[in-house]
């Protein structure tokens, strides 16, 4: 058996994604009981190599590994030797000398986890590479929606925001469309990249068209840099045209679920009223992130050393 990696949902078949979701569902019950650990990865080492700042995803992976009784080690971009000029490969090779079983990588350059998987003898889990994919986020999004709606097939998902720079959006489009959902992406044309439809969605610059009949809406965070690059004129106009508030949400199906990968820009892409509202499943997403990541670590540990 070769090393198992999770580099992107694009590499998995629909069946494999479903299998991971079922696995994640099993891990959810462990999170509910009083002893939250299982001994499955005892003696295994999981290294979190986070070259991009992230508190929530890294904590989620660290906790997931610890709940599986693995030993964990965190390396973050600012503190590591990469700042001193060491290449990513050299950093990873040094870490590989400790024979970790799994390296979880977050990196601002797309393709970095793939490069590592070819050079390092460890399972590589992609915690987000540039704008390419964020597969564990995709899995927890799928898990959360599947639990609420009992299915993915045939539902309508609207993703609104900076699609061009979003790895969360790409993984979501790939994952949800593979499982049979109808996905539409929406945002100002400056934020809709060419050929995005090829990933499995339709596109529109009209918010009400995107929301019409939607079972789930996913709002993406607007980053400050985009305003500086002038992808849109002001936060105010963005919020008016593309933000989600109670009024625009009414255009969706009654009971439409509201998602957001976090952190939220209250008042820009989403109002507090909606983010904290009765159909918001934002906190469930975070909870499910733990189960999804435990499932992924278990799945990757299942590949033998080569």
């Amino acid at each position, binding site marked *: 058996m070769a090393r198992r990696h999770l580099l992107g949902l694009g590499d998995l078949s629909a069946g494999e994604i479903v299998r991971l979701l079922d696995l994640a569902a099993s891990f959810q019950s462990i999170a509910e009981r009083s002893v939250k650990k299982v001994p499955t990865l005892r003696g295994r080492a999981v290294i979190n190599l986070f070259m991009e700042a992230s508190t929530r995803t890294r904590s989620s992976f660290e906790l997931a590994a610890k709940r599986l009784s693995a030993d964990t080690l965190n390396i973050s971009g600012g503190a590591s030797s990469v700042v001193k000029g060491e*290449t990513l490969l050299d950093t990873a090779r040094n870490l590989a000398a400790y024979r970790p079983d799994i390296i979880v990588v977050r990196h601002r350059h*797309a393709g970095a986890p793939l490069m590592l998987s070819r050079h390092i003898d460890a399972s590589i889990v992609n915690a987000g590479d*540039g704008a*390419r994919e964020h597969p564990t986020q995709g899995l927890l999004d799928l898990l959360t929606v599947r639990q609420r709606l009992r299915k993915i097939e045939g539902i309508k998902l609207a993703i609104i925001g900076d699609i061009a720079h979003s790895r969360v959006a790409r993984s979501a489009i790939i994952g949800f469309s593979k499982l049979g959902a109808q996905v539409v992406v929406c945002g100002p044309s400056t934020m809709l990249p*060419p050929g995005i439809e090829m990933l499995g969605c339709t596109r529109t610059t009209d918010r009400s068209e995107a929301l019409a009949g939607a079972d789930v809406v996913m709002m993406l965070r607007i980053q400050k840099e985009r305003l500086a690059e002038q992808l849109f004129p002001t936060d105010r106009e963005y919020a008016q045209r593309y933000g989600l508030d109670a009024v625009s949400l009414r255009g969706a199906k009654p009971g439409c679920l509201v998602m957001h990968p976090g952190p939220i820009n209250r008042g820009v892409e989403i109002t507090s009223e909606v983010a904290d509202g009765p159909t918001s499943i934002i906190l469930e997403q975070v909870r499910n992130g733990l189960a999804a990541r435990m499932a992924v670590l278990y799945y990757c540990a299942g590949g033998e050393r080569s």
Partner: protein
Amino acid sequence: MSIDGLRGARVICPASGLDARRDVALQGGRIKGLLPPGTLPDGPGILDVPQSVICPAFVDLHVDFGAPGAEWREGMERGLKAAAMGGFGAIVHTPATHPVNDTAALCGWFGAQSAAAGATRVLPMAALTEGRSGARLTEMFELRDAGAVAFGDERWIADTALLRRAVQYAAAVGRPVFERPEDAGLAGPGVMHEGAVSTRLGLKGIPAAAESIAVFRAVALAEQTGAPIHIGPISAAGSVKIIADAKARGVPVTASVAVANLVWLDTKIAEAFDPVFKISPPLREAADRSALREGVRTGVIDAVSSGHAPWTADEKAVEFDLAKPGMSTLEICLSLLLDRVAEGAFDLTTALAALSAGGWRSLRQPAGRVEIGARADLVVFDPERRTRIDPASRAGRGQNCPADGQAVRGEIQLTLVAGKPAFSTL
């Protein structure tokens, strides 16, 4: 051993239209005779090459050995060996060196590099502006006298007014301006073609418009000033169209394309994020590649260059975003074209013209010819034999040759510069 004659080969001279079997007799660094095949008498310096093709040695318009300033990449000596192995009798070296080639002293240094008899000639391109900074013109007369064959910054000049002045000035100096067409603002931090593939890979893209805007600007300036401008390397269908229209109107422009853009597409990067395929200008879509091949076939694109830019493993074995752009292609340039000939994109004569006559035309110099009295700058190759490309035995030092470890079509057997072998397997 001196080579006095080559017997039995198919001689193709695109400039004169010759395509026939001939025995070629050489003397004093020149072609002494072109005889019916089999008539040249035996002798010590006579080689029989009945399986081969003989044509004028190639000239490459865009080469970068990293010399001076970055010799660890390859350096002049190994670079010239690689060029000779690829059948090139002359190469135009980029001015984007460290220091920049904007002084007569450095320009003269380039020319002196091929003083060694029988080595591939180095034709220096001098910078159009001081330090390639786009602000002040270089002393073009001095540079011309020091050997510069063309002027260009190999970089976007934002000030169009300055570019116009530079183009006008260069015309009076008598050398063409080489314009690398890419609007830097529009290209931005892009690392590959902007399209469905870059979207899928999450990499920033360079839209084709960044090139067509620059191509059109160059065409407009050539038309307005009447000064000759060479535009290249181009990579997009839109650019081919603009140039075709310009030529039809009689605008004095020529164009070139890097061989890689005739071979691969942006989808190649999606296979494995392999930084070897990160090049500038980038690999684009199928429609662009078809238009480029058609451009070579019809002659709208005058020349094919190798685009040779060697990099070490350290500079290439990094994240795609950080890798330096470029491939080592001198040794495989002909082979890549022979594959296209075999696929029917264009015929052999067209390919050989693009490698020689087209380049000379872009330099506004007479083409090398295979005719009596001409300098013996020739390449002899076997178009059918397969050669294995091995990084250890390649002359070039770059670790970024896309054909490493593969067998490619065609084998260069002999490269003659003024009758002396720069490279020989015979």
